[in-house]
């Protein structure tokens, strides 16, 4: 069957099998391997993309179902060579180590900041609660999103206060 959709603002049209999942359409048919393919069971959230501005787990959506809709992937965050505030936040605040979960984290938190430009820690944690990161313990991800929120609001003065007491106590315990 033929499927046509907008991906990162450009219309794409391909002949596909109806059973093709959106994640494989993006990665294998369009070569957009920024979207990662993880657990395959809608648990890990690394495959999250935005469909009509809402985060969706692309391993649990058929490419056919995205036909006629606007899909945005992690490749669509950067605009004209300028990284999204979230991408810069993840760099500034060490929001990733291995990077496997990062595309999904970025897309979910992009949607969060679009709806709620000034989220609390709790709201950030709630938003990413369907996503798994095995490196950071989430604290630096939350901090990265806070950094991006402040950056967007134009009130960046310094890094958000360190709230990761576990990290500092772990250092203390090692000495």
């Amino acid at each position, binding site marked *: 069957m033929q499927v046509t959709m907008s991906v990162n603002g450009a219309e794409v049209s391909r002949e596909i099998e*109806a059973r093709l999942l959106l994640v494989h359409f993006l990665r294998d048919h369009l070569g957009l391997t920024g979207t990662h393919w993880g657990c395959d069971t809608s648990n890990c959230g690394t495959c999250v993309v935005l469909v009509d501005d809402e985060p969706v787990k692309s391993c649990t959506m058929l490419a056919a179902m995205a036909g006629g809709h606007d899909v945005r992937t992690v490749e669509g965050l950067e605009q004209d060579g300028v990284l999204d505030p979230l991408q810069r936040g993840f760099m500034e605040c060490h929001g990733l180590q291995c990077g496997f979960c990062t595309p999904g984290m970025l897309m979910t938190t992009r949607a969060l900041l679009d709806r709620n430009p000034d989220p609390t820690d709790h709201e950030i944690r*709630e938003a990413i609660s369907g996503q798994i990161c095995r490196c950071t313990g989430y604290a630096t991800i939350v901090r990265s999103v806070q950094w991006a929120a402040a950056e967007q609001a134009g009130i960046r003065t310094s890094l958000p206060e360190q709230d990761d007491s576990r990290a500092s106590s772990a250092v203390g315990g090692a000495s």
Partner: protein
Amino acid sequence: MQVPAPFEYERATSVDQAIGLLDRLGDTARLVAGGHSLLPMMKLRLANFEYLIDINDLSDVLGYITVEPTQIRIGAMARHRELLESAELGRAFPIFADAEKVIADPVVRNRGTLGGSLCQADPSEDLSAVCTTLNASCVIRGRDGDRVVTMEEFHRGPYETAVGDAEMLTEVRFPLRPNGASAYEKVERRAGDWAVVSSGAAVWLDGDVIADARVGLAAVGPNTAGLPEISAMLTGQRPSEELYEQAGIIAARSCNPVTDMRGSEEYKRHLAKELTRRALRRSVNRINEGS
């Protein structure tokens, strides 16, 4: 890589057209809404269909939450997030927000629907227990029009409902009664998981006595059936801790949990008792806070 077996994809343009397709294709076809229950089953090849009929374009006509004087009508395509965020629904039935907060995760809740959850008929599914607790009725449309069934009639058993091959669940109706409140209590192993056990309660007061009360459980047997024995015991009584305790004992005795990776039968009966007690207590507290 988990990929469904091959199928033909059709997109519904109207409810009648979808029913026409189902009528023509019979049991080789299945509707897909949010797809977050059906697609995983198809990926595991636990479900295989020759045709998949995508009804997501019907969100506009079946995605409503309509509050009327004596009932709330919710379209089958209302998504979890919409149910969670509806202030009107939350005021009338706080059980919805209680349950929706702990159904899967926010991203999954962007896609999953009320109708899809009920039609999946998983014995551990939370919205079926909510609908049972609230004495909901289901509107099923076929070629010859609508029929309305109770939740007990709708939910026939695990993964089995009253919806026929050429039919579609279009709406769920919740009767509104004065001076009532509801609550949902769930224990899960980790955020977003299926329930180990869940209990929903709804209570209506007449003065300081219980005019009616209902309890619905999830994950403790093949059905999410209500517990009429609890309703009979509570009706006409003044709410008290002793009463909640008795209701919990009936819940623990009446359910049929099995030992599995989520817990032992004994533990699940303990949860059925304790969560029923908490849900009833919270419902009554909510009535008193609201009055």
